[in-house]
Every structure is written in C-alpha cells, then in structure tokens.
C-alpha cells in the first residue's frame, strides 16, 4: 500500500487541484521551478544485548518539503501538518527566496509509471514481533554456543518503509514506496585481558523474510566471530608509505571517498572540488572503470526514482582511467547544462536534495586475486573497513581498516591492528597497478553523510593493488 495516497492525500482531501494550487503558490513568475516532497516513513528497530532483547522502538515521521528554485537559489520550508492551509502557508514561505511576482497556473500530469526495483510492501507488516525477538535470541545463542571466548553479543534488526510522492512544476507526479531492512551483529571476544571486536551485517530493499528465513544472518554471525578472533591475534602495524592490496567488496569505500564525493555535481558547478574541470582527463590508471549504479534490484543504495522524480541510471564516472562525468541533481544539471543523472537525493522531506551517490563500484579487471598478492614483496592486505571521510577541495581522503594483514614475499602472513589510510583522491587511483577479476558488492550496510544528511548507499570493487599509500600504524 502507498501510505501517501491512503493516509495523506485521501485523509486530508488533497485533490489534484489543491496540489496544483500549492505548487502554484510556491512558484510565482520569477521562480523557475518548485517541487513538493510528501513523505510518510514508518520505521522500527529491535536490539539484543547482554543476552536479552531489551528494547524495541517504532517511529513514524511524516511531512511535506516545499522548495522554490530560481537559478542557483533555493527557498525551502516544510510542514509536519498536511492540512491544505498549512501547506499553502509553507509554499508562501518557500517562495520568499526571491521578491515575489504574480502567481502562475500549474498543471499536474497523471502519476508516472515507474520502473520498480523493489516490491511496494512494508517489511514491517511481514513478520510478527515475537518472531523478530526469537530470531535475535537464536542468533545470540548460536554465537555463544559456537565460541567460549564470547564476552558480548549485540544483534539488531531494523526495518523502514518509506512512502513518498514527488510533485513538481514540470508536471511530474511520481510515487515510490521504499522498503529497507538491515541486520547487524557485533561480537566481542576476550582472551586474558584482551578484548577485540568483530562486526558484520547486511540488508537491502526487501522484507525481513530474506533475513529471518535464510542462513544469511548466521553467515554474518560467523563473520563477526572470525573478525574478532583475527583481531585478537593482531600486532601493531608500521607507519609510513607502502603497497596496499585491498580485498573485494566493502573496501570499495575507497572509491566512495577518493573519487565519489569529488564527482558530485554541486561541488563541480561551484568549482570547489579537486576534480573540477577534469572531464576527459586521466584521473586513474587505465585499468580503472568506475560506475555509480542506482538501478540494481533490491540493493540498499538503489532507488526506482531519485528524490526529484528522475529515474536512476547506471552512470559511468571513470572509463579506463578517463573522467567521463559527474553525478547530478536537477538544479546542478541545469546550471551546468547537462542532463540529470538520477542522483538527486535527500535524507527526508525536512532537507534540501543534493547530488548524492547510489551504489558506487569499480568494474572487474583481468588479474586473479592470488596473482595480485603474490606480486607484493612487502605490504599490507586490508579486507575490512569501518568508514572514511574526504576533503573534496584538496582531495585528501582517509579510510579506516578494521581487519588487515602483512604481506611478506607474496604471502599473506600476520594480522595487524586496524589503522587509517590517507591519500589524495586525484592521485591515488593513478597508482592502482592491478585490478582483480573478482568484483564484489558490499553486503548492504553503508550510510553516507553529507552536509548533515544521511542516505543509504552501496560500494563495491574487485581486489586491487595500490602501489603506494600512507598507512597509520604505530611502529616506525
């Protein structure tokens, strides 16, 4: 069901004519464009710690964001109240970005038929609460039975059903219903006085049954135990510049930080990115082809339409090392005279949309992963990461490894403690000398922050080798 149609439009008697009037109020003659973003989000979370499911939570957040755009200026207001009068008043606030002119008539089209990348079914309706609680208890028991070094297990299950309607002065009327579920597990193992953590999890735009009725969660539980056990053995690593091999999948956070943010349209229109004016230039080694693909069915970072009603696409950012294009929302695309790329996203109705990533990954190369490791005499093999950050202006980025090993004479040897890697975005991908044939996408846990707004994203990559990057160990 679509919450917006049933709980909002019908309930508050918001007819097409009234919606047209609200848009019209937000878009007088000297405003170029206005849009309305209706949202009704129902979310819940269940968490187990210390062996018991202590608490569950449920949240409903709903409202309408109203934006008025003139050139590169945006006026914005929102309302938590769906009464027609409140929405007209918010529209009048939004248009104050420019001195008001006469209002003009807006005609809405029929609602669009959009390509569906996920089912319009609320995951929250799928399993009863007692099943979710039992599931978390089963996982906890499984972990505690499996390893007697377990000191703590924290398991959580979260689901969201996000129902939206986008209306704009181009006549667009697009509904989208977005399910999103996530399973997470953190295990602490203890030996003597030493405690170490392993974390894992996954999810996507589907229902709880794909987590609860499968082996999925048990595999993540095994993975969390394995990581914690590896970290119990980890020794202090070295500091300095060295060769690093990154494993497939989640280490793709490299791409998200090193180039992804720098290729967002707003920064490039304003020329504040280290990648500004580099279209057509070599920014990575010729083995690197990188895409941002919002169209993969059921993935965490995918959207049937973006938050401005544009269909998402698979956009090639870098092809054989050459920079091909930026990720755009409507405003920045228009100001840069290119087409929108389906990357206009917002955290909620209460925030302005911006160009954001969806699922960002590198396509596979020709090398066998073993070949890549064997080629390294002295270096680091990093397979799990806990996050990253970038300064898009000077290109400096970091990402923090949570599971890493030494490579000695072509072999993976001792585990080393987690550490931060730092590099320069436009330079680091030129140092990618081998790309593996083992492309893997992450398991569906990524969240990206920009200007205080969080959105779910995906990353991925094959195994790859960076000839030189600075590594933050403690030993010199």
């Amino acid at each position, binding site marked *: 069901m679509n919450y917006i149609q049933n709980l909002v439009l019908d309930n508050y008697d918001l007819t097409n004519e009234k919606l047209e009037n609200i848009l019209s109020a937000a878009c007088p003659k000297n405003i170029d464009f206005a849009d309305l973003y209706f949202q009704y989000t129902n979310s819940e979370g269940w968490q187990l710690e210390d062996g018991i499911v202590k608490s569950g939570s449920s949240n409903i957040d709903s409202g309408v964001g109203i934006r008025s755009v003139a050139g590169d200026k945006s006026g914005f207001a929102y309302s*938590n109240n769906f009464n027609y009068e409140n929405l007209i008043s918010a529209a009048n606030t939004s248009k104050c970005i420019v001195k008001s002119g006469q209002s003009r008539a807006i005609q809405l089209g029929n609602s669009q038929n959009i390509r569906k990348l996920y089912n319009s079914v609320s995951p929250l309706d799928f399993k009863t609460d007692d099943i979710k609680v039992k599931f978390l208890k089963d996982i906890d028991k499984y972990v505690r039975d499996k390893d007697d070094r377990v000191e703590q297990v924290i398991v959580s299950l979260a689901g969201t059903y996000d129902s939206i309607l986008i209306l704009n002065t181009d006549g667009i009327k697009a509904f989208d219903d977005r399910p999103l579920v996530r399973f997470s597990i953190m295990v602490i193992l203890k030996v003597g006085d030493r405690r170490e953590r392993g974390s894992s999890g996954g999810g996507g735009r589907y229902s709880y049954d794909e987590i609860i009725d499968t082996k999925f969660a048990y595999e993540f539980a095994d993975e969390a135990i394995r990581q914690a056990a590896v970290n119990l053995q980890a020794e202090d690593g070295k500091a300095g510049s060295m060769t690093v091999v990154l494993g497939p999948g989640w280490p793709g956070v490299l791409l998200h930080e090193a180039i992804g943010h720098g290729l967002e349209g707003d920064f490039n229109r304003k020329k504040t990115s280290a990648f500004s004016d580099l279209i057509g230039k070599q920014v990575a080694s010729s083995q690197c082809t990188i895409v941002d693909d919002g169209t993969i069915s059921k993935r965490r970072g995918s959207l049937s339409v973006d938050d401005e009603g544009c269909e998402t696409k698979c956009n090639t950012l870098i092809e054989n090392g050459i920079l091909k294009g930026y990720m755009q929302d409507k405003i920045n695309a228009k100001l840069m005279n290119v087409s929108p790329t389906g990357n206009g996203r917002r955290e909620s109705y209460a925030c302005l949309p911006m160009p954001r990533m969806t699922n960002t990954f590198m396509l596979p190369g020709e090398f066998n992963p073993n070949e890549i490791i064997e080629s390294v005499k002295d270096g680091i093999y990093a397979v799990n990461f806990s996050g990253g950050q970038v300064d898009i202006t000077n290109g400096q980025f970091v990402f923090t490894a949570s599971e890493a090993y030494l490579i000695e004479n072509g072999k993976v040897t001792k585990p080393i403690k987690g550490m931060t890697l*730092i590099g320069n975005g436009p330079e680091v991908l030129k140092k990618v000398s081998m790309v593996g044939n083992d492309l893997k996408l992450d398991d569906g846990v990524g969240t990206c922050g920009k200007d205080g707004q969080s959105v779910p994203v995906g990353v991925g990559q094959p195994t790859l080798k960076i000839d030189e990057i600075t590594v933050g160990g403690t030993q010199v």
Partner: protein
Amino acid sequence: MSSNGNNILIYKDRLEGIYKDLNKKYSHEFNLSVSNGYTVTSRSSEVENIEYHEDMALNITVYNNFKKGNASTNNLSSENIIKTIEKAENISQNTQADDCQGLPESNFTEKQWDNLGIYYPKDLEVENVIEMTKDCEAEAFKADKRISNSEGSTFSFSKNSHMILNTNGAYGAYDSTDYSLSCIALAEENKLMERDYWYSSSRDFKKLEEGSSIGKKAAERVLSRLGARTLKTQVCPVLFSPEMSASIISNFLSAINGSAIYKKSSFLLDKVNEKIFPDFVNIREEPLLVNGPATRPYDSEGVLTENKNIVDNGILKTYLLDTYSSRKLKMDCTGNGVLTNITMNSSEPLVSDIISTLKNGIYITDMMGSGANTLTGDYSRGAFGYLVENGEIQYPVTEITVASNLSQMFQNIVALGDDIDLRNRIRTGSLLIDNITIGGTN
C-alpha cells in the same frame, strides 16, 4: 522573521489529559522537543538558500514489568499520541524482562526552569540576516587575492523547547535558543586548492562574533594551509588544537559512559579510582553554565543534572551513568542520560604560548576518519597540521597519519594551553601530547 513561540504548554495539557486514562499496569515517560528556526546561506555575494525548519518529536517510553517499549512520532494530535502510546505498549509485550529497567525512582525534576541563561529569543529581519552573511563572506574575499572561491557564509537560528513528563511524577520544561554564523573559504595557489572555515555559536545573538571577524579568520586559516608538504614518518610530540583536543576528550567520555562499561566494550573498564591522566589534569562536568552549549537542568530521563568532578588530579572518579546503567553496575545514577558541558582544566597554570612549549614537533589542527577504537584504545587517524621547529611554525603538513593508543596519549599529556574553545561543549585548550607516531613518507 518573527518567531511565534513554541507553545509547549499546550502539549503539557494534552499529555496530562491523556495520561490520566492510561493503563496503570504500565509506567510511561514522555519526552517532547519542539524546535523552529531558519538557516540562511549566501555565496558569491548573493543569497543562495533560505531554509525554514519546524520540528516536533514526541518520544514515548513504557515499562511493563521490567519490559521496555519505545515509540515516537512527529504528529502531536491527541488521536495520534494515543496510537503511539499503544504502539510502545505493544512493543513492551514482546521484549524481555530486565529488572534494571524502569523509570528513575528519585532525584527527578518537578518544575519548569527559567533563567538558565540559554534562552535569548530575538526577532531578526531576514534582509539583515542576508546582509550579515554577505558581509561575512566579503571579508574573507577581501583578505587576500589567493582567496579564490567560497562555500559561502551561513547563519542559523533555532528556538527550542523541551519537556519531560513521567508517571512517577517527574515534570520538567525549559527553552533554549541557538545562533551560529560561519564561513567556509577556499584559497588557490599553483593550481592546488584548500578549504577551511571559522564559526561562532552562542545561545545569545549579542554574543556572536562579528561576521567580519569570522570571514577574516576563515581566510587566515585557509591561507595558512597553502603550500602544504608531506613529512617523514617519525615519533614526536604533537600539539593538538583545542578543537582536536575536544575530540580526544570526547573519546575518553565515550569510554567511561555507563553503556560502554556494562557492555564491557571499553578500554577503561574497572578503572574508577585509577590514574588515567597525569596529576595536573582535572575534568569536570558543569550542566548549568550560563550560555553553555550543552546546558540543561535534567537529563533525558528527567534526572537532575549536577556539577561533578570526573577526573580529579588525574584520577578517574566516576563513570557517566543513567538509571539503567547505574542499576546494572550497582552504582549511583549520575544524571548522565545525556552529557552536558565538560571542562578540561589543569592544577598548574594554563600555558599561554604553547607552541613555544612544543618547541619541536607537529601542531595538528584537523583530523579525519573514525580511527579511535574505544574498546582497545587504539588510535589512528588522518591529519593536517604544521611543522614546528624552535617554537615556531615552519610550514603546513598534509597527508599524514597520527597513531598511538588513547591510554598512552592520556598519560603522555605534557601541558594544557589557555586557548580554550568556548564554543564547544567540551571546553579545552590545546593539548601537548608526547610520543605520537606520525605516518608520512619513507
């Protein structure tokens, strides 16, 4: 641009009306926050965005024989509040019992608070706010011709009301305001760009730093970044700026939070009454500071907040405990369902010229990434700063890492500067810490 008050007392009446009829089998807690305001950004001498916000959040916690349920909503109609209560009650049917769970029994607030020195509403005209942001940005551009671009100047205002009610008789309400003005400047030299920012924030509009001064500082900061070089890998003393020092102290505060302790996920487990810092270090919580960025009279459960010494002469005196974690650990609740204002102090005089005390080492003013592990204390982050030789800044350094272990870093604090950052909820000056590994070139 006039604010029309948040009228939180309307909701008090509504909630009291509802909770008379609640099922007495449960105990209930209602946490309400209402906030309204706006954000104005100007860039390239023109207004870029004006965003108005108006937020409401009602969070309802219920306890049902030691079982807990939680539900929240932003729709405050009576009908919807009742639905939300039912939802929280339903959740509590399915969660498991834990006899440490429940409302606080005592020491909770029973009044409305005025005169906390954090509520200074002021009607500002939007035109004046736009001019203020334009002037702020203009001052950055005026500073130097290498200031090539900007991300603009932003002013934001919000007026907030908070209320708590629970069925044990706690009631508290207070208002606050927040104003801030910031500027992000970009500078370019030899085709390389840098960015940096400066900001001022206050509860009282009158105490905000002048826009011209903010723009000028943003420009000075970004200009000083131009021409950054890398460094050789080394172990040396590091001076952390007040902002970076606050982030290190926040890692300490996370590690002594009750929830990290009872989950056994902290490197400071079983360390109360042990020496964590050198003798001269004192860390104190002051919840009721006038104009304090985190001032509040009661915590998220309605327990009264109080002044306390967290670290006394280097010794950890207490964990930070809410009702649940205090029962779990069999300690006294410290009213730390939230953390308020923290002050880092020294029993020795604060150092006024701390860069000369550093003498030879690195002065770190920016760090990136999430490399502080509060389970093990392992610390590794990306950094930007300046090489200091003979007590003087030589040149900016970039693409380096800072690594150590938080336990060692705390013990290795050598001096505390007097350059205290009053904008931050953690009030500290620069910290000089010995024996840090800097990763750079070979």
